[in-house]
């Protein structure tokens, strides 16, 4: 039987079409998380932003710029594969940040956004029926729960299935659970000037990238002589966000103490639930 091809539509930097090499976003998800968590590999990784999800809601105005609704993007990728006579993807994982970069203050709800994702996929005017039917079934299962946590079963890895992974508040929360672990990851022995003192491991922190990782990276960039990682990743959390994310995550997985806490975070736990290659899924 042919192995299911799984595409990942994930929150991430939009890369210019001509950029060289495997983007850091791909390395984070396939090389680091994929191999460390023993996940089914992603056949393609498509960067998205929350705009793709927001654009699916007919109550919202048409998005500015270039962002099409997520179902249009998925349908387009399927159509391109057909035209190029390539194997299309069978399953799509959609991983988005709950808190958008443009407005961290809103009252966002993981459950509502997850249900809405399936609601809009189920009535898509562009997706093939198999995708809409799977979305409809998943929506029924979600809406049939007497409370969000009353899960009956995991969504199956079947053709046409969309698996929702809402990262709360965002991917970077995975990296900032333990200040000591991040210091070890960045090979910092003492606390450098400007190092963030608050927010580590605080699940209420809505912008761990800007309020914790950004000052942390800025702080280590001021250390003389320059650290190896600073020499290697030439940029800060604004300009090399994915590269720093990849670096820290690799180091956390390589640190036995930190590895345990990373694996306990809801994001890896959710990925293992949905995509583990082991038999006990």
């Amino acid at each position, binding site marked *: 039987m042919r192995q299911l091809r799984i595409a990942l539509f994930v929150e991430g930097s*939009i890369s210019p079409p001509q950029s060289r090499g495997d983007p850091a976003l791909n390395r984070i998800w396939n090389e680091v998380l994929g191999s460390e968590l023993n996940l089914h590999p992603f056949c393609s990784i498509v960067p998205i932003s929350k705009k793709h999800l927001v654009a699916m809601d007919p109550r919202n105005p048409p998005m*500015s*710029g270039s962002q099409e609704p997520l179902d249009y993007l998925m349908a387009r990728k399927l159509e391109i594969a057909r035209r190029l006579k390539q194997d299309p993807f069978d399953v799509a994982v959609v991983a988005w940040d709950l808190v958008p970069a*443009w*407005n961290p203050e809103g009252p966002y709800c993981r459950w509502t956004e997850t249900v809405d994702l399936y609601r809009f996929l189920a009535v898509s005017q562009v997706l093939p029926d198999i995708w809409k039917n799977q979305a409809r079934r998943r929506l029924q299962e979600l809406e049939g729960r007497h409370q969000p946590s009353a899960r009956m079963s995991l969504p199956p890895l079947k053709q046409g299935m969309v698996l929702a992974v809402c990262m709360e508040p965002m991917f970077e929360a995975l990296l900032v659970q333990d200040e000591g672990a991040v210091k070890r990851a960045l090979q910092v022995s003492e606390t450098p000037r400007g190092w963030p003192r608050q927010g580590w491991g605080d699940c209420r922190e809505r912008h761990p990238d800007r309020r914790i990782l950004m000052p942390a990276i800025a702080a280590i960039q001021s250390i003389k002589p320059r650290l190896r990682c600073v020499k290697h990743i030439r940029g800060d959390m*604004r300009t090399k966000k994915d590269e720093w994310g990849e670096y820290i995550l690799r180091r956390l997985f390589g640190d036995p103490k930190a590895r345990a806490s990373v694996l306990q975070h809801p994001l890896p736990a959710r990925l293992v639930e949905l995509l583990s290659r082991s038999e006990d899924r």
Partner: protein
Amino acid sequence: MDNETTIGTIMNQHQDTNKGSRYITEVIIERFKAAFKPGPIPLKPFNVIIGRNGSGKSTLIEALQWLDTTIRRDAREACDRYYGLHDLINLRSRTVVPYFQLTLRWSEEEMSPPVGYRVKVEEGENGSPFIAEEELVTLQESGRTEHTYVSTESKGKRVVSPPEDMGLEIPFKEPDMLSLALAAIFHDSSSSPIDFLQSFWSSAVFLRLSPSRLALGSPATRKSFEPLLDEEGQNLPALLSELTQDQREELVNNIQGIMPDIENVEVSKAEQGRDTRVHYSLLERMPFRGRGGRSQFPIPAWMLSEGTRRIIAILALLSHAPPPSLLCIEEIENGLDPWTIISVLKHLQSAADRGTQVVLTTHSPWLLDHVELDTILHVRRAEGDTKYEQFSSRPEIQGFFPSIPPGTRYVSEG
């Protein structure tokens, strides 16, 4: 209006200090160009100004630039781009002596008091600019004056107060010059607000980049009173010449994030008698047919795309040390592809994190979608006046679902 009250009213409602660096937190423009009395304009370390054509987006930047040019040269030269002062004064001004007034406030480093500065410029004889009033103070939290460094004794006659142990006050009466330059002689301590203002304005940069000027070449060095980069970017080769090896490497690294095949930036000199002019080229790696392998080829500035020239100019400025204190760029998106807009934006946000105050104008909803809502200033014309509002504070904008990005809100409700 009472002068002390004018500065005193621009109190610290915007104290989100940028890691201890100093930046303009508020500007009050009165009777300048499109702005009659728009009220205090709050500024942050990073700012994006949006608004329809003709709404007055540029008025704020031009007010700051007027001060910059007056400090570098004099008020006459600052008014030259408007063919004198007369048209610069807002049309609604009906005072006996036409004037405009600019009031600014900076937040200071931790534990230091905020700095307030005000200048009133009247239309003098023959329509020339006449600096009637000038005031520089440090402020207490309450808004009251803590210490006065420059004050106005009578119309046109300003007084510089030296440090307490130096005795007499110094009068200053040059009609078209600001007293800051004189004041700096007496206040050379690095903790003095005058020293800070000197430093702030000497490294402020205002850009309306011209692709044709960016390709012309320039003298090898800029003059001491000139900004790091002139408004149209003609002195870009001189700026590139100033970069150290490390700064040049950083520039190339940043360029490669946008144009991966660029290997280096070269500056070449062309001797023309006593004048040495410099030009720049990008070294691009490309397949070389015939001998196998790859090689680098210099592409001179005049052969680069317009967008590429703009990218080099902005990134070169950000690679310079010390960096600009204030960087204002009009219509930043011009000539840039969507991915480059985001890359350049990230570099500018990064610069703001490190202490450069950034003020951009844009018409691009795409760009807006990549900045935080509360960094956007919305400029509108209403009842014959220009109004500056925080975009996120307008009820129409707050009415959107929180997940709707700023560009969409602007296009839908602008």
